């Protein structure tokens, strides 16, 4: 089960820090990469909010630089590009590397007691493929005839040459394909590593729940990313080689046509699992961190695992709820409505377990704990508002309004982002050997949490009031003009949210190089990653550890009154 085959530590800079096959270095690469792209996507969101609150007013600071032809004003086409790229970047280039790439690479080998991923070179390839995807995506902003502007969902025929002539759309599809390929490589690696490289004694029911979340996410990645990959290849074929998979005969001159709805099926067969791809690792982290900082075992470990497995399975059969207004048959619509609602059962089990884990605990409200607890709040808000959208009767009106925007940002974006923050604050000491400032961390938490909830709750009101999403200017329509004050309020809160991230940037960079040196186990947690020295040596463990107990043996009475935790490598007394 274990790898005794150890390569010597590389000595050249290039091998050590750039083309490294060490999972720890790759994790850091993914983290930096993801954080930079989250920043870029965030700035795009700020520009979108600027335009919505002040339609036609030049963007301050850097507007003239980015939109020289309109002297700083965002034009409608650029606005579409901005929200398309905001979505694509945040999902594929921000959260995917920061959550799955960095967290997965860092925690899986360390938490299961392995010396590296099972396929280190594939791991490196996965990172560099993603860099390539990011480069192609970024380049797509500057090509002749315009960047992509068909939304992150890229529905044809708007995304075919019928609606988008710009080469940017083609490059966007290629970028999504490349990033998808990267995720598949990562997924295969994670699955195989978890199955093959668990150290002796680490049986399935002793795995930290973080690893479970990442493992299930990887399964979804490997199963469903190929679907979007094929959808993107077909889109490129349609755009470049003149095939007509997505272009109906009625809008072509001659030949037999295809159907744009085919794409929607392909996209959402992937797209709905993608929501869970992003949220499952966050759920896993939340399960673990709540237990770690409540100094209490994770309540109902098996039920949590079961719930996450059930969500993984069900996520594959609910995608039709994205298409209730597309023209699904009544039978399909009702089936998808029912299946979508069934997925709330495992979610309820998880909520129940989380809340029960906190109950009668001994809570240490550190920054990672605050972020983990906020996921309960934020995901609760997002999940519950999902009921409005799963119900076709209300979805007909709310579909494609800001209600949807608020809902999915709270569920897949904010929850995954806060889960990522929790993970970064938690593993930072082990990763970089230094502590992050707790004071700044808590400030960052409160200044992110409060505006974030305000931003997306106002969006629920806007959506309920009938404000369509993806509109360049809501003041140009009589019916929507009286809603402008909601846009302004959302934008003010959004700018506060954006500004608060500067605290994180400052804290991260300052702590990375000038932070207080971290002790080996600052959080007093028993999982295998904290048994290693800080900084973690090359090949992690001098001898492969042997696991004796589960990851959450907190406050066990047999430990005696002086300590409330135990390493997984130690045997419970008695």
């Amino acid at each position, binding site marked *: 089960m274990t790898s005794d085959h150890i390569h010597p530590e590389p000595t050249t800079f290039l091998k050590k820090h750039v083309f490294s096959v060490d999972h720890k270095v790759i994790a850091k690469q993914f983290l930096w990469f993801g954080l930079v792209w989250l920043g870029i996507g965030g700035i795009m969101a700020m520009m979108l909010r600027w335009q919505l609150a002040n339609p036609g007013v030049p963007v301050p600071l850097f507007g003239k630089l980015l939109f020289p032809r309109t002297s700083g004003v965002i034009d409608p086409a650029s606005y579409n590009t901005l929200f398309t790229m905001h979505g694509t970047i945040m999902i594929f280039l921000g959260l995917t590397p920061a959550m799955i790439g960095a967290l997965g690479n860092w925690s899986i080998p360390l938490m299961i007691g392995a010396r590296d991923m099972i396929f280190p070179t594939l791991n490196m390839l996965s990172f560099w493929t993603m860099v390539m995807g990011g480069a192609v995506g970024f380049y797509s902003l500057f090509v002749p005839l315009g960047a992509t502007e068909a939304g992150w969902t890229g529905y044809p025929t708007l995304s075919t040459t019928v609606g988008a002539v710009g080469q940017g759309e083609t490059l966007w599809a290629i970028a999504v394909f490349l990033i998808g390929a990267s995720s598949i490589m990562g997924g295969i690696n994670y699955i195989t590593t978890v199955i093959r490289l668990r150290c002796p004694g680490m049986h399935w029911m002793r795995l930290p729940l973080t690893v479970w979340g990442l493992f299930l996410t990887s399964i979804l990645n490997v199963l469903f990313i190929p679907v979007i990959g094929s959808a993107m290849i077909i889109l490129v074929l349609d755009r470049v080689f003149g095939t007509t998979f997505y272009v109906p005969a009625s809008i072509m001159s001659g030949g037999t046509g295809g159907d744009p709805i085919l794409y929607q099926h392909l996209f959402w067969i992937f797209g709905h699992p993608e929501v869970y791809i992003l949220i499952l690792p966050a759920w896993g982290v939340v399960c673990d961190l709540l237990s770690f900082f409540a100094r209490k075992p994770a309540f109902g470990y098996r039920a949590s695992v079961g719930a996450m497995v059930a969500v993984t399975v069900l996520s594959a059969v609910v995608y039709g709820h994205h298409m209730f207004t597309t023209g699904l048959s009544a039978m399909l619509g009702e089936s998808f409505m029912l299946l979508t609602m069934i997925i709330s059962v495992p979610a309820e089990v998880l909520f129940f377990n989380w809340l029960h884990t906190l*109950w009668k605990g001994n809570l240490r409200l550190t920054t990672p704990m605050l972020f983990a607890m906020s996921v309960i709040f934020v995901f609760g808000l997002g999940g519950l508002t999902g009921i409005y959208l799963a*119900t076709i009767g209300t979805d007909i009106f709310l579909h494609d309004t800001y209600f949807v925007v608020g809902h999915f940002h709270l569920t897949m974006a904010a929850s995954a982002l806060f889960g990522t923050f929790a993970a970064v604050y938690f593993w930072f000491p082990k990763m970089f050997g230094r502590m992050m400032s707790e004071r700044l961390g808590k400030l960052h938490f409160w200044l992110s949490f409060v505006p974030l909830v305000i931003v997306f709750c106002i969006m629920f009101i806007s959506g309920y009031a009938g404000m369509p999403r993806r509109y360049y200017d809501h003041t140009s329509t009589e019916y929507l003009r009286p809603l402008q004050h909601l846009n302004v309020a959302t934008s003010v809160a959004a700018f506060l949210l954006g500004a608060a991230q500067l605290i994180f940037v400052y804290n991260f960079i300052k702590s990375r190089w000038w932070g207080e040196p971290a002790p080996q186990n600052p959080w007093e947690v028993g999982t295998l990653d904290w048994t290693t020295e800080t900084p973690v040596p090359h090949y992690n463990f001098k001898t492969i550890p042997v696991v004796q107990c589960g990851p959450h043996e907190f406050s066990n009475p047999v430990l005696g009154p002086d300590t409330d935790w135990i390493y997984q490598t130690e045997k419970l007394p008695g």
Partner: protein
Amino acid sequence: MSMLKAILPSLAFLRSRWLGCPLALMLTSTWALAQDKRWGPGEAASDYGYRFHDLFWLITILVSVAFALVVLLLAIPVLRDRERPGHRASFDHGKSLHDKRLTAVISIVTFIILDAWVLVIAMQDLREAYWAIPDAEDPQTYRVEVLAQQWAWNFRAPGVDGEFGTADDIITINELVVPKDRPVSFNMTSKDVIHALFLPEMRMKRDVNPGSINKTWFRPITAGDFTILCAELCGFAHYQMSGKLRVLEQGLFNEWEAEASKLASTAFDADDTEAQWAWDWEE
């Protein structure tokens, strides 16, 4: 006071052109300009519109209770179970049969209250209203063909003769006139990309796809002028693809229809095949 004087000059940047002006614009003018602020979708003007509100507020009540419970269960440990000297967490893996039963019961009860109840009502709504598209053969049904394009709505009504594809078909752009209290049934398709016909006051929305015909309907119960919007991203002028829906009393509507049909016949050009986009109504 002296401290204020010390701070004020540093705030001068707020007055500078690149930041101050737009900031002030945003905070004051935009808010002030929106004189009649709206917080909801307004009154429903279709006969099934009330169903949206009934269901929306039912879900809101259920969801609010559930969320309040979550927040309460989050707040109690935060206030009560904080770490302090001499305090220890209770040791509980939640493995007992009692815990398993509790988990199962709570999840299933929540599902029944939160989801199943709503599901049953939603199914009823779909069968009785949203998807109960009226019979096209019924003379009461007012039929409209929609041909969407970047960025306009083309509407075709059969005119006084009640048949599509004839000289008296009434074709309007970005304006639709319908009679009050009669079901209005749509057959819709698109020339180029996907659009979505969104009548917010009627609580109606349906995608308009190229290459296939999508159907939907509503019955207006209030006369007046209403809004037509596009709800599916369709290019850079998507936000401008709006129109006007006029609902007329039956008497007024008949007058308008006769007039419009007559005008249409005089302007009809049999050779202009481009304009003959009517299609047969089947089923």
